[in-house]
């Protein structure tokens, strides 16, 4: 029993560490993927419960954060698949979340966008492109790490990243933004 307890306590300490290190990052990432705060909290919760549950089976073949991100991304995807009706609602909601256009002359310059405003434009991207940008830029994951998280090849990740940037550029152009 002592051994089990010992193990449990080590797991406890590790989970605490992971939550401190990755809790908010995961929460933000899931929110950017699902666009729904309540779901983001639920998915983050489920992610860490799964991390705790499966900690013993983590063999250290990848870095712990890619493993945790992989769980979170899979949970988020599962949620989005299950919530077909909710997804329709979210699309509606995302339309409501469309960033307000600036009225000042200089505001149409991309550089003038705050990070929060820029995030709102990223939120307009389709899921696949948004997810890849979130993982690469917001979470600062390398191409290799993203391919591990998403279970795909490096080439596929590069291709998606390229398309995601292109798509974002189109959206910004459509909104009248110019580049310096």
């Amino acid at each position: 029993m002592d051994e089990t307890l010992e193990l449990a306590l080590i797991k406890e300490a590790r989970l605490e560490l992971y939550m401190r290190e990755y809790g908010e990052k995961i929460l933000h990432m899931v929110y950017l993927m699902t666009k729904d705060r309540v779901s983001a909290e639920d998915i983050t919760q489920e992610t860490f419960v799964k991390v705790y549950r499966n900690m013993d089976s983590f063999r250290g073949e990848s870095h712990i954060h890619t493993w945790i991100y992989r769980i979170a991304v899979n949970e988020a995807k599962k949620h989005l698949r299950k919530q077909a009706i909710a997804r329709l609602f979210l699309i509606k909601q995302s339309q409501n979340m469309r960033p307000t256009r600036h009225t000042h002359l200089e505001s149409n310059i991309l550089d003038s966008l705050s990070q929060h405003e820029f995030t709102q434009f990223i939120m307009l991207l389709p899921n696949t492109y948004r997810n890849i940008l979130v993982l690469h830029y917001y979470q600062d994951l390398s191409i290799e790490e993203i391919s591990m998280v998403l279970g795909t090849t490096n080439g596929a990740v590069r291709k998606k990243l390229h398309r995601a940037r292109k798509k974002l550029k189109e959206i910004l152009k459509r909104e009248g933004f110019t580049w310096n």
Partner: protein
Amino acid sequence: MELERKLREFTYNKRSPAIPDMHFSPKLEQKIWEEIMYEQKKKHRRLSQWTVTVAAIVIVLAMASLFSQGGFDQISTSLVHEERFETLGIQEEQMLNQLDSLAKQGFTSKIDQSSSDQGITIRVNDVYYDGDVLMYGYTIQIPEEKRALLLDRGSPDFANIFFVNGKEMTGNSIRPTNIKKIGKDLYRGVQYMFITHKLPDSFTFGLKASSIGLRIRGSWVFQFPFSINESLKKQIVHRQYEKSGYIGTWPVTIGYVRKTPVSTTIQLKGKDLPVNDYEIVGMDQQGQVLDGMDVLQQVNLLENQQQQKVFELRFATSPNISSLQLLPRFYFEDASPSKLVQIPLPKQPIEFTGKHGKVKISKIDIQASGIYVHYEVENPLDQLQNFIILDDSGRQITRIDVPVRTSIDRYAYITQFPNAPVSQKGELVYRHYPAPPQKTEEKDPLVIPIP
């Protein structure tokens, strides 16, 4: 290039995050721990050889006190719902109350032994042991700086381990995860377990804890002489019966009935008896069915031989129970075809007469505080499931799961839908499972007398 630069700025930064008002809060962290604890508890239960949640027995204890007070005609379903589900706080409160009551009656032994580590003191107060049930109460004094580590999951890991004359023993217990705050830095808890080994009347009792909750580690050790309380011994009744009969289609023999102030144990012997598919129904002196027994219970397989199995059934002692029967449990999956019933609101009353009696919605009260559905079930084996209120366009606006009445239950109920907005054209919908016909091959059930 400028877009790439902008994207590079789109990086998580704790100081100025892109989503500024969204944080991994302590509340969220607590929810995660609670979920983990819940899972561990479930796992612990699965591992247990005892088949039915011991926690339920505590609910029976509460019900037992209701027996003595009478008044079962009507009670809010929401209350029943609360009691039937494992609301841990309620269980622990009931355990503590029971221990206090036993102490008042002079059935416990006062111990008052404490053990300290890292400034945290655990004190074992009252111990109750009647040969079947072991219960002990304790307090934890914890300094302020360590209190945050409890996170409401602060019970010591005594679990079901204890020591008798230095020998490790295992009981069958629930492991409460909550302790009750009774002072600024003082918490109170109780451990409750069923003992299947025969223990001597006097022995050296030992307890060890190596953690409190999930995060506090340390060592708290107790050792004290213990003897079964003499006043308690006088209260214990043991009757040998060797009476035979049938449960369903299975022949059985009652071995003994042992009754203590806390639990009543029945020994049953039989071949291939699926005890877990049955539940104990209590009856009073007049043979009237007493409600509440469905929330029992414990089944313990003592012997499992080809010729014969020996079981112990255990439930909370109640002064009103004169005899028992075992009746088949109800499972929705095995139920006869159900019927979806839709009643326009607020029309009332409505009554359905079927083969096995009546189900009657006697009143639907639409008030500012919510909708109150009064209903009556004539045959207790009739089941209702899921009251749903629909609005005038057929959308579900609220739903209450009606507790499964496993065999015998109350006759009349009120279910409340708090703050349910309803238009005058809404509907109440529920599913009705008619009582199954009695199987012709089933014999008259064995009646077990309780001393």
